[in-house]
């Protein structure tokens, strides 16, 4: 195992944790009143939270939520964004202008502001959280795909396919999509790191998963409250979150260098 690939190992570990939490009931909501805010021990590696719940299984449950949201939102937004970007870049003209105007509007809302607003009005809960993140995170894929398609349109193999009478759909799927894969993969990786943060930001504000179910953002908020008397709580959650985001970001850098995609 080379140090170079630590990001892959960290990511794999969290995915394993999420899978474990999905198939085995680790009782993350089990309350032990004698152990309220108890420090970490060998039996309970990360200690207990303010309600006397073991932090370790809750971290795994939080990882499950986080990775589930990220996977679902990425699949949906990438599909939608890529389709939109392809249509925009391929047809050009007023179609392109209108669609890009719409993406400009979404880009005018900085960061996760729009997601916060939508999650707030839609109401708390997992499905609304996913919906809010979907509404706001397809734009990057659309812009990237459109930019790539604009230049791919001029490539000889695309023109050859066109003159041989290939349908638009065939050109898009068979002749353009494979060449888009590398930059889109890099974009998706960075976007996933952003989604991990976005999901926990919304939960931190009380907009995501509701109690008693575990989510990293909500755990962090509770942890901050007991920061002075039980720093292990906030540290356990914060470092977990940081390790996941760091791993995904580094993986993105590695992929970008390996696939030779210009940032």
């Amino acid at each position: 195992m080379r140090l170079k690939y630590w990001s892959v190992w960290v990511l794999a570990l969290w995915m394993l944790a999420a899978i474990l939490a999905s198939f085995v009931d680790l009782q993350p909501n089990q309350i032990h009143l004698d152990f309220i805010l108890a420090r970490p021990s060998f039996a309970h590696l990360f200690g207990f939270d303010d309600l006397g719940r073991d932090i370790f299984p809750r971290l795994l449950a939080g990882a499950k939520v986080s990775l589930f949201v990220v996977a679902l939102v990425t699949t949906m937004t990438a599909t939608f964004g890529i389709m939109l970007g392809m249509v925009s870049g391929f047809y050009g003209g007023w179609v392109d202008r209108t669609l890009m105007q719409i993406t400009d509007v979404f880009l005018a809302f900085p960061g996760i502001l729009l997601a916060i607003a939508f999650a707030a009005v839609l109401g708390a809960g997992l499905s609304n959280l996913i919906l809010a993140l979907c509404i706001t995170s397809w734009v990057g894929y659309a812009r990237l795909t459109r930019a790539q398609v604009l230049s791919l349109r001029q490539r000889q193999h695309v023109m050859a396919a066109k003159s041989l009478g290939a349908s638009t759909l065939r050109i898009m799927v068979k002749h353009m999509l494979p060449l888009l894969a590398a930059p889109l993969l890099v974009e998706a990786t960075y976007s996933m790191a952003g989604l991990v943060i976005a999901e926990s930001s919304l939960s931190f504000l009380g907009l995501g998963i509701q109690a008693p179910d575990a989510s990293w953002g909500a755990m962090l908020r509770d942890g901050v409250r007991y920061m002075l008397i039980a720093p292990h709580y906030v540290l356990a959650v914060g470092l977990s979150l940081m390790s996941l985001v760091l791993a995904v970001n580094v993986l993105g850098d590695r992929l970008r260098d390996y696939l030779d995609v210009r940032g």
Partner: protein
Amino acid sequence: MIKRFIGIVPVLFGVVLLTFLLVHSVPGDPVEVMLGESASSADRMQLRADLGLDQPIYVQFGVYLNKLAHGDLGVSIHSKKPIVDLLAERLPATAKLALLALSFAILIGLPLGVVAALKVNQWPDKLANFISLSISAMPHFWMGPMLMMVFALWLGLLPVSGMDRSVAIILPALTLGFGLAAILTRMTRASMLEVLHEDFVRTARAKGLAERSVVLRHVLRAALLPIVTVLGLQLGSLLAGTVITETIFSWDGIGRLLVESIEKRDYPVTQACVLVVALVYVMVNLATDIIYIKIDPRVRFAS
């Protein structure tokens, strides 16, 4: 430049439309959600009429646009005060925080990026890369409490939160600034590396200029151009970050107003906060573009 001004009109219209639709995406009856089940039917009728919800949606949007053009953002359901007044109260605090955070980011990120570029692939570069990567992985709601823990609780140097003392701004500003500093470090490094290989840098060295002068007056000056543009875009994450940072540090700005309005289901206020932040962001980006045109002679003469 005039084209750029006209270009933002549809964007502004879209932003207004989207924030308008925000309140309409409340599932079920917005009035019910905002007032709760215990409200009297007279109160409900009143709010429905106040919000114009008894009108068709396009009429509502027309009314909303008209009011907006007259600087009227409606009235807070909770405090009954005009929202414009609420925003005016809170805006200076956020502006102060954002500006100080930006200054911190520049003071930290720029020198770090310059050093990293000059010592590329040596230990200072690797250290700067490690620091900026680690900071990039720290969301504001993790960075904030950490700074609070170290500087306020353990060392007792700075106040934990609030706005009573003037030094209280330092921790929230650092929380916001560090993230931007990390991005700025990477950008400065990349931009410097590109310029370092230019012919005019070799000429400057060949003239026998001191290395310090070559770096500061020739390389950095040319490298700053792309940095300015990206900095404008990155200010967005800083603005969005004020929502969580202000909440953590009890800093009474727009961000905290937004969170409070969400908690009280005071959606007209939520809507106004989102709109104002988006408008500020659009203006900042417009200003960045104009600055870019002003400081880059190539762009200036080409257009």
